[in-house]
């Protein structure tokens, strides 16, 4: 095996792809897509809030709620108490003079009645939530008042109890919660899954392309098929790594920019931070906590991504070598895709019980570990030996897999005609 040849192929495969328009577009568009995806709900909510002004008639049979509701209406709601009979209010809503009307029965203060909102259209979640909060607050205040509750009781009922979580570690307690780490673990697991899937398919595509346009016979008259396979897998792996590092850099830059941006656009006092607070303090005050991802987690993430990619890429390449076009690969891909998808089904289980025996075992299984071990490493403190054993198993499996894949590949790239069955492909590995 010639390392120099593998390097030549790696370099060519890498540059050929990295300079393509498709690669540059994907590298730029994916982060934009993620930001858009993250920002969309907030943006839509904001736009919806901007546009919807609701004028709501109140048919108040208690005679004691309309005024305080009106005083508490907020910016988007306008309450119009009315004495008109319900029928004519209904007609007015249908005619479009009100967006809807709120019916507050006399029994409401007694604790049995139910407030009802009538409108020609649903009104949406945010309107419902706003109405709910206001009716609840007002009715509760009146009921407490009617029961003669003291101010102390009222303030107790009105207050929120918040729960803060702190993580215990060797360095003491650290702010922030396992929730953020669960999110990070979940995100990392999914990124590895998607990256292995996409870059693995790239490898398969490359193999099929080389075979179907018949350049492969020229190449293997210069290098060993195994060198071509390794060069291709490593070259595409390097491309994937370059792309992900670019995204990581953009992500880091983006999160580093949050603090300074807050300083630019807000006054510290707006966020409840002391005058002259630092960017970091403001960020915390604004509730924008970006938990720092520990370096060792990043390293494991990269190593397991590479290990997982190599393992699956070898299989994708073997499948690619057996067919002449992508469509023919579908049925052959089942044994490759199944172990890749299975850990996604276990994600929730592992998140809920990251240290259960089953979770530990699953995160050691080589075909699952790139996803599940990284998830566990993110959400819990995994003993180092477990990670090391898991990674060693992954690499050992990769070595075995690429050896078998190489034997299949060597026969496959020169076989044209009928798409072989899985059984035939397995037999190829035994050819001399």
């Amino acid at each position, binding site marked *: 095996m*010639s390392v120099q*040849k593998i390097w*030549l*192929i790696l370099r*060519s495969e890498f540059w*050929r792809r990295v300079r*393509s328009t498709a690669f540059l577009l994907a590298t730029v568009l994916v982060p934009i897509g993620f930001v858009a995806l993250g920002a969309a709900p907030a943006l839509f909510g904001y736009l919806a809030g901007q546009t919807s002004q609701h004028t709501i008639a109140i048919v108040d049979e208690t005679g004691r709620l309309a005024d305080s509701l009106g005083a508490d209406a907020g910016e988007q709601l306008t309450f119009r108490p009315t004495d008109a009979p319900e029928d004519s209010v209904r007609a007015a809503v249908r005619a479009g003079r009100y967006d809807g009307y709120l019916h507050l029965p006399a029994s409401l203060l007694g604790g049995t009645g139910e407030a009802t909102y009538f409108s020609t259209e649903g009104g949406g979640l945010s309107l419902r939530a706003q109405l709910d909060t206001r009716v609840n607050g007002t009715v509760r205040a009146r009921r407490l008042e009617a029961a003669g509750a003291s101010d102390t009781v009222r303030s107790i009922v009105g207050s929120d109890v918040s729960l803060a979580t702190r993580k215990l570690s060797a360095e003491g307690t650290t702010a922030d919660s396992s929730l953020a780490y669960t999110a990070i673990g979940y995100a990392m697991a999914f990124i590895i899954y998607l990256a292995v899937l996409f870059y693995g398919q790239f490898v398969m595509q490359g193999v099929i392309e*080389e075979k179907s*346009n*018949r*350049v492969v*016979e*020229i*190449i*293997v*008259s*210069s*290098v*060993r*098929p195994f060198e071509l396979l390794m060069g291709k897998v490593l070259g595409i792996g390097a491309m994937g790594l370059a792309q992900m590092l670019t995204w990581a850099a953009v992500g880091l830059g983006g999160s580093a920019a949050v603090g300074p941006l807050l300083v630019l656009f807000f006054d510290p006092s707006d966020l409840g931070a002391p005058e002259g607070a630092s960017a970091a303090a403001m960020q915390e005050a604004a509730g924008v906590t970006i938990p720092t991802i520990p370096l060792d987690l990043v390293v494991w993430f990269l190593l397991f991504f590479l290990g997982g990619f190599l393992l699956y890429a070898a299989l994708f390449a073997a499948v690619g070598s057996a067919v002449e076009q992508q469509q023919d690969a579908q049925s052959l891909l089942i044994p490759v895709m199944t172990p890749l998808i299975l850990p996604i089904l276990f994600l929730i289980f592992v998140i809920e019980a990251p240290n259960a025996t089953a979770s530990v075992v699953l995160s050691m299984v080589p075909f699952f570990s790139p996803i599940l071990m990284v998830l566990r490493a993110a959400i819990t403190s995994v003993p180092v030996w477990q990670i090391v054993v898991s990674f060693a198993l992954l690499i050992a499996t990769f070595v075995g897999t690429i050896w078998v894949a190489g034997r299949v590949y060597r026969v496959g790239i*020169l076989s044209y005609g009928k798409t072989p069955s899985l059984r035939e492909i397995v*037999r190829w590995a035994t*050819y*001399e």
Partner: protein
Amino acid sequence: MAHLSVENVTKRYGDTVAVDDVSFEARPGRILGLLGPNGAGKTSTIRMITYIMVPDAGTIRFDGQSVGPWSQQRMGYLPEERGLYKRLRVKEQLVYLGTLKGLSRAEAADRADHWLGRFDATEWADLETKELSKGMQQKVQFIATLLHDPSLLIFDEPFSGLDPINADLLRDIILELRRDDRTILFASHRMEQVEQLCDDICLMAQGDVVLQGPLREVKEQFGQNTLVLEFDGDDAFIDELEAEGRVRVHSRSAHRAELHLTDGTEARPVLDRALDRTDALYRYERVAPPLNEIFVEVVGEAEAERLRDPTPAAER
């Protein structure tokens, strides 16, 4: 220079024997025509020579040493089914393929320039390969085969798809390589090309070598059993001769016929009959059979042999 010898080579795929105990040699400064119908085992043999595959039995030596990665660097192979990376630029492609053959980038670039010039293709250097026509791509493939100055060249149907002008250019270059004392293997179905170019032939059928040797000797071996007639007038005498079992018709048009004398037939009676029955006889010549006929005859015999002995090749 490079001497190629294939010694008792066998290759099986599962139960099928593709190449069965094949031996032949190719010598420097000569062109060896590797012939045979589809499925004869030519491609498998070439793939073993180029070390793309390894034989199950037997050895292939290049300058006395078993072939391997080292010999790949000294061979240039133009496969019958060939392609290029569509998205690479022409020169970049050539440089890449050259470096895989062990050239340095600078060397590969220089030689690519030289050969692109020779093929009148310098202005393609920066085009993406997919922009080229099929014939243009074929020139690039041909250059890739030569770029690293190999001492053994293997051309599988090199002329297919080339226009006559480029085919001539290619033929010139192949003959030039031959004068340079390189060893050349030429696989083809086109017998007239083989007859024009080859010094030696090796005819394969059913995984066996059924005929080999210098082209002239091979033809002599088949004797001067072919008659070429050119005439005017009635050609019914040919039908009669054929009906009597004296000749077999190779080819026949209104005024020309190539006849094979069946075993034991004298040439004289055919001449008499022709003189007797035609209005004018311009040409009567006794020649060696065309390669095409030899091919059909030998391959036909091998096929018949196989039919007589129904044991599958694998069990023989």
